[in-house]
């Protein structure tokens, strides 16, 4: 691999005399400085928004000064994943392995790079955490990288300074704190998952023995670790072998979504959920709010968060024979009984998981019950680099600061001013600290309160490493040198340790090659070869000795039952006083804990259940809404002590009664253009006493939610409400009428719920495993196998089919509805975001949408199923006939193509599409693109102009690329599995499979041959879609039905 350097080595004194300016010729200071500084004066101090001029200057400067092809290529060696490509071929993308470092959700990824621009993130197939898949957070990192609102310039006392000045200031600061041995110095970081950071902290502790080190994360992912600690006295990250469990009980644990290792879990879970092989685990879930896990559950108990422990206590009590007196309703009792029977029947092959928002003792109890049920072997344990208890840690820090004991605080990468527990008064504490130094990707709330703010490099611009909670050590290597000259956490800590700025690469490399990269892991030393190989493949392989709970806790097993009894005996039911409501705080599926607040892709990713975009809301179930007397968009005031927050109501079936769900991550006050005015800040009422839920006084306000972002619309009826992409229960003025009529009109029922039930037979088909095994055809094709007797004649002669025929199969049994496919599609296909007002007008652009259907009679407590829908590529496509310009036509390999250049935008195709998957560019949605944003686009996909229809292409660019490649090596047919569309690639459960349907041996053909495979709306319209669906199968417990 060639080493790229920005410095041409052409000394003037050498024999070859090349010079680029008179200054250089005469070797004046200007030229020397210019060479050393990469950019000319002013180029490095970019203020947002970057002007076109300054960007071009920057681009020109790098071209001129580098003298090489690349503009922002990292200086150090980074190694491509692919072999044999020693040099860059223009127009051909390269893949580099790196790691997505979000704590507890670390993913091994491969990043596609086009001429030095990272454009697309994909899972690393050999990395345990991702196995080639990814999640929406990782997919959306590209958007974050090129965010023009990122912090671009260091600030000291509010004034912009150059990076050099900031570093000088830091060096001075270091001098003074080292002199005082760190007296009054504190550090606040995200939970440490980087061995190199851990190593630097260790060194720093030697230099600054008096300093305090704190870790904080607003999510509560460490609960599981601390639960382990309370049993075996050592903090480990637990992992669950879900593929080996027959019965899984999730207590408020969203292991498929928000909990640690979601992708790994989803993969393992789906592996054991294949009705065709007859192997299907059973999932029970008890939860207050919808989670992806709850939506996948075969049986879901809707229960307030504060009552979740009682479920576990009752399970424990029945298992141990303890006597307890907990009043529960019939439904819960029934549920618990069935769960216990199943757990006993599957001893050693069952798991109970507890969510991060539940107290530590509940985690302990669950782990102990798992041990009792001999399930310990299914819980593997991974070392934790720097064990911590974030809530205690930040509480401690705040108390010290209030006491005036802290003089200097380094906040590295977190945003506690926004997300610290409300009762701690973190703002007040910060004011008592003389110098706060903040390192962050954004000049966020904390940066505003800091004395010194330094822009952080994005992980795609950084060198680093990660020991993931899935137990893999992997490097982070940059794909591009920092766009805004940010520095990394490692570099900043390195500056404090070494007293001078060292490159992140050097620190990392010396840490890896020096001795052991990670003492906590006991892995062997790393050789030069290992290092290069690790960069290449994206992980460092060493024989991991996975510990499991069973063997670690072997000596505790005899006393285990007693401990359980003790925990049960200590259980006191939490009581919510009359007039109060429980408010739960789940992380957001799009904003996470708020750090992705300015990510437009994620802002516009519909919530899996409410389908809300650009906002969060107070979710309540219909009966609670009725008792509160509220309707959608009505504001509620939630009061906890002296803290209060106003949030709009959104009625969501399936939320626990008397519970209000308010997700975290919204309501940022200092954010960029995308996060502005988005939602309400739930942290304002979240206290350190109960991180998962709080009892709040709820007052109904008469006013409705008004959104400043949508005020300027030319609509006659003003749209100020919450925006959702599935509008059934939100915007329908005659909704009440429908509810009243619903049951009395069985034949012509076109009601909200009734039509959905009606259409669960048409659009989304589902059934139980029992039914499926007994009569396989009946689930997908109805009792009468309806539609089969109808002779279907096409209107036109069938189109000629040549070569391989592409098709897709989507398995609704394994689709968890996470939305990774939607973001992956958006990144791959340059799909614009449209903004909240356009969503309100029904102009959401995502090519693949995930429909959410509620099932069941009980409006408060329905089941849920997800159905991803993109263009299904009908063979008899209704859209093709009606286009007057012949802009949408059929390819000989079965694709429904869009010729953007011919499209005149009549929208007739969309009107005639029964799947409603066509997306129209009503306005110039891309608009004036900031220069930096232009680097984000995938050069293989056309950018669509205003007035043009677009839709899923089955990632035709990938198909053609693959076909071209195989034709050059003289292979006629592309082998199965070689072409993977972006959605299929991202899908953590591999619910989406793509391939050649003309060959019966391909994976997709085999899936399509299953009896539960059906073609949506084909019987009605004879469209012959190429995308088929696998009916949703639930493994019901006969006891509960």
């Amino acid at each position, binding site marked *: 691999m060639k080493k790229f350097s920005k410095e041409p080595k052409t000394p003037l004194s050498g024999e070859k005399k090349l010079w680029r300016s008179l200054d250089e010729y005469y070797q004046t200071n200007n030229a020397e400085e210019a060479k050393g500084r990469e950019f000319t004066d002013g180029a490095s101090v970019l203020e947002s928004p970057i002007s076109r001029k300054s960007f071009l200057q920057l681009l020109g400067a790098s071209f001129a000064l580098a003298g090489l092809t690349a503009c922002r290529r990292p200086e150090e060696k980074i190694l491509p994943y692919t072999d044999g490509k020693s040099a860059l071929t223009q127009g051909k993308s390269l893949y580099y392995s790196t790691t997505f470092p979000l704590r507890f959700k670390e993913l091994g990824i491969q990043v596609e790079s086009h001429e030095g621009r990272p454009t697309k993130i994909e899972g690393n197939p050999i990395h345990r955490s991702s196995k080639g898949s990814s999640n929406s957070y990782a997919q959306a990192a590209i958007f974050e990288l090129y965010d023009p609102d990122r912090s671009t310039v260091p600030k000291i006392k509010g004034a912009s300074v150059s990076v050099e000045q900031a570093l000088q200031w830091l060096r001075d600061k270091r001098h003074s704190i080292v002199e005082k041995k760190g007296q009054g110095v504190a550090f606040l970081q995200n939970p440490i998952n980087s061995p190199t950071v851990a190593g630097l902290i260790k060194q720093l502790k030697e230099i600054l023995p008096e300093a305090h080190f704190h870790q904080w994360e607003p999510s509560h992912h460490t609960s599981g670790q601390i639960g382990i600690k309370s049993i075996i006295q050592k903090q480990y990250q637990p992992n669950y072998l879900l593929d080996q469990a027959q019965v899984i009980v999730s207590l408020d644990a969203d292991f498929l979504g928000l909990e640690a290792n979601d992708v790994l879990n989803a993969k393992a879970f789906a592996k054991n959920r294949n009705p065709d092989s007859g192997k299907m685990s059973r999932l029970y879930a008890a939860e207050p709010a919808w989670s992806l896990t709850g939506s996948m559950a075969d049986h879901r108990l809707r229960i307030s968060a504060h009552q979740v422990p009682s479920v576990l206590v009752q399970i424990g009590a029945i298992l141990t024979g303890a006597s307890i007196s907990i009043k529960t309703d019939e439904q819960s009792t029934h549920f618990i009984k069935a769960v216990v029977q199943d757990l006993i029947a599957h001893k050693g092959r069952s798991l109970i998981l507890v969510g991060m928002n539940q107290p530590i003792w509940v985690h302990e109890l669950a782990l102990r019950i798992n041990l009792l049920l001999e399930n310990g072997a299914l819980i593997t344990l991974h070392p934790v680099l720097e064990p911590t208890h974030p809530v205690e840690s930040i509480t401690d820090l705040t108390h010290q600061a209030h006491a005036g004991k802290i003089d200097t605080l380094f906040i590295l990468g977190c945003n506690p001013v926004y997300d610290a527990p409300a009762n701690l008064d973190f703002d007040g504490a910060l004011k008592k600290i003389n110098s706060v130094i903040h390192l962050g990707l954004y000049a966020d709330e904390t940066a505003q309160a800091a004395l010194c703010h330094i822009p952080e490099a994005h992980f795609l611009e950084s060198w680093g490493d990660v020991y993931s909670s899935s137990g893999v050590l992997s490097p982070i290597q940059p794909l591009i040198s920092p766009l805004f000259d940010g520095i990394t956490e490692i570099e900043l800590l390195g500056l404090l340790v070494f007293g001078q700025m060292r490159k992140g690469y050097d620190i990392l490399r010396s840490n890896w090659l020096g001795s052991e990269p990670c003492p906590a892991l006991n892995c062997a030393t790393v050789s030069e070869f290992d290092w290069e190989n690790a960069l290449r493949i994206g992980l460092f392989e060493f024989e991991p000795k996975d510990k499991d709970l069973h063997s670690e806790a072997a000596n505790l097993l005899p006393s285990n039952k007693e401990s359980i009894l003790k925990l049960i005996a200590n259980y006191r039911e939490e009581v919510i006083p009359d007039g109060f409501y429980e408010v739960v705080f789940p992380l957001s599926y799009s904003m996470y804990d708020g750090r992705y607040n300015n990510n437009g892709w994620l802002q516009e990713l519909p919530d899996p259940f409410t389908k809300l975009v650009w906002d969060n809301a107070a979710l309540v179930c219909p009966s609670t809404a009725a008792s509160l007397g509220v309707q959608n968009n009505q504001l509620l005031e939630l009061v906890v002590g002296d803290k209060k927050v106003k949030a709009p109501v959104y009625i969501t079936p399936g939320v626990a009664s008397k519970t209000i769900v308010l997700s975290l991550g919204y309501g940022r006050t200092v954010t960029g253009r995308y996060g502005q005015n988005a939602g309400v800040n739930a942290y304002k009422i979240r206290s350190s006493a109960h991180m998962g839920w709080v009892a709040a006084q709820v007052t109904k306000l008469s006013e409705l939610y008004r959104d400043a972002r949508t005020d300027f619309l*030319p*609509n*006659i*009826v003003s749209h100020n409400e919450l925006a959702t992409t*599935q*509008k*059934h229960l939100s*915007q*329908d*003025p*005659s909704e009440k*009428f429908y509810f009243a009529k619903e049951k009395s*009109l069985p034949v*012509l029922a*076109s009601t909200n719920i009734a*039509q*959905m039930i*009606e*259409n669960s037979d*048409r659009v989304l088909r589902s059934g139980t495993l029992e039914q499926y095994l007994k009569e396989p055809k009946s689930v997908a094709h109805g009792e009468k196998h309806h539609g089969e007797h109808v002779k279907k004649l096409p209107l*036109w002669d069938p189109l000629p089919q040549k070569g391989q025929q592409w098709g897709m199969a989507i398995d609704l049994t394994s689709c968890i509805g996470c939305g990774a496919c939607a973001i992956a599609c958006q990144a791959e296909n340059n799909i614009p975001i449209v903004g909240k007002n356009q969503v309100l*007008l*029904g*102009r*959401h652009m995502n090519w693949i*949408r995930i*429909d959410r*259907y509620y099932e069941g009679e009980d409006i408060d407590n329905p089941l849920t199923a997800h159905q991803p*829908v993109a263009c299904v590529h009908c063979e008899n496509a*209704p859209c093709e*006939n*009606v*286009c*007057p*310009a*012949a802009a949408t036509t059929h390819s000989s390999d079965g694709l429904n193509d869009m010729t953007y250049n*011919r*499209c*005149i*935008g*009549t*929208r*007739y195709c*969309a*009107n*005639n599409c*029964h*799947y*409603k998957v066509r997306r*129209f*560019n*009503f*306005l*110039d949605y891309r608009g004036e693109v900031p220069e930096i944003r232009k680097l984000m686009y995938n050069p293989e996909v056309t950018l669509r102009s*205003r*007035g*043009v*229809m677009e839709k899923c292409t089955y990632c035709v660019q990938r198909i053609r690329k693959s076909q071209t490649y195989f034709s050059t090596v003289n292979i006629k047919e592309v082998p199965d599995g070689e072409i993977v569309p972006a959605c299929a690639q991202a899908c953590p459960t591999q619910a989406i499979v793509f391939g050649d349907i003309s060959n019966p041996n391909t994976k997709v053909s085999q899936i399509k041959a299953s009896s539960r495979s059906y073609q949506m709306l084909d019987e*009605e*319209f004879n469209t012959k879609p190429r995308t088929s669906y696998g009916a949703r199968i639930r493994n019901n417990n006969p006891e509960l039905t």
Partner: protein
Amino acid sequence: MNKEFEQKTKLLEPEELLTGNPSFGEIAQTVVAPVETDVAKTPLAWRLCFSVALALLGMFIATVIYLLVKGIGIWGNSDKVGWAWDITNFVWWVGIGHAGTLISAILFLFRQPWRTAINRFAEAMTIFAVLCALMFPILHTGRPWFAIYYLFPLPNQMGIYPNFRSPLTWDMFALTTYFTVSLIFWYVGLLPDLAALRDRSKNKIRGFVYGVLAMGWRGANKHWQHYETAYLIFAALSTPLVLSVHSIVSFDFATSQTPGWHTTIFPPYFVAGAVFSGFGMVMTLLLIARQALGFKRLVSMRVLENMNKIILLTGMMVGFAYLTELFIAWYSGNHSEQNAFYNRLFGPYAWAYWSMMFCNLVAPQVFWFKKLRRSIPVMFVVSILVNIGMWFERFVIIVTSLHRSNPSSWDYYYPTWLDVSMYLGTFGLFFTLFLLFLRFLPAVAMAEIKATKEEANPHSQQAS
């Protein structure tokens, strides 16, 4: 001829066509009076109306410019409701454009002499309405500049032609043909009257302009012979067009698969609806013009009554189609179809459906009563209701069929102010042209109406 028979038919003939039997001179004087008024003496009412129309036209032009600059996202349409007011307005204006040709061609072939009082007027309205309608198929597209280019089958090196399977392509041909034929038909009919104006003109400019437009008409026998033949040929050519244009417009819906659109009843139903709405609009305009221009003697109550009969008939045909649709939806046993119609009747747009039902089916029923049929205020109100009802009909068909198509992609369509200004703007275009027509061209076909008089009939007893 049998005298007895003639007396009987006289009894059947309720009254004379021209009230008070005006002379040829009186007819000409009445018709050309508004045209020959001095510019300085232009009536204030006309000036006021014209300035309102011009203002609306200005609004239309401004909206169109904004539309071209920003894109059709300024309307309320969405991915689910791809067509809304744009196509509603299009079909509505095309429908209105039907009365003219029907009156001048079909009624001509059926030898209905009462048509002569209104045919010029109705034809002008047709042309202007079709012009308004033509705005929408072009402007509703995302890229109008390409729409015009790609829709014409221009030979090109790529060998790509418009998609002849698409009803929109048929639409383009049908509409342009209809517009061209209507325009020529109207112009041919104008020739003798233009010549009359030329001959009567008292200043040079008028004489020159009307002279050029009259194309050398001298009223020679040969001219009349050619004229009559040409008129007959155009009438014969236009007659199938009256049926074809709206049938093809209905194919936009009928040949698609969307439940609520996919019905074979659409072509006759749309043609009946078009005639219905066209007569409605003619009636509204005629009642105003008759009053304002003093044509009461030329446009007699008998003419109005006949028109009301046609409104009643076509209204019931339309109503029959509405009910047939419902029956078929139920009878077909097709869930999608049933859902679509249930949604139409009781869904969120039920108000639009029932407004349509009232205006189109219920309101014209008053014309069963002779007294009401001959009451100017009643027929004015009903004609307005018909116009409203027919707009709702298209809105109901388009929007309610689309907004709840796929069960996961339901939507509720709200128009924006720009939808409204676009629609009202087309009235500006329409009335600007129409007022200019009233001011500068004879609004009643003088030559033709004179031909209906007894004196013009060589076999008439009175003449002999």
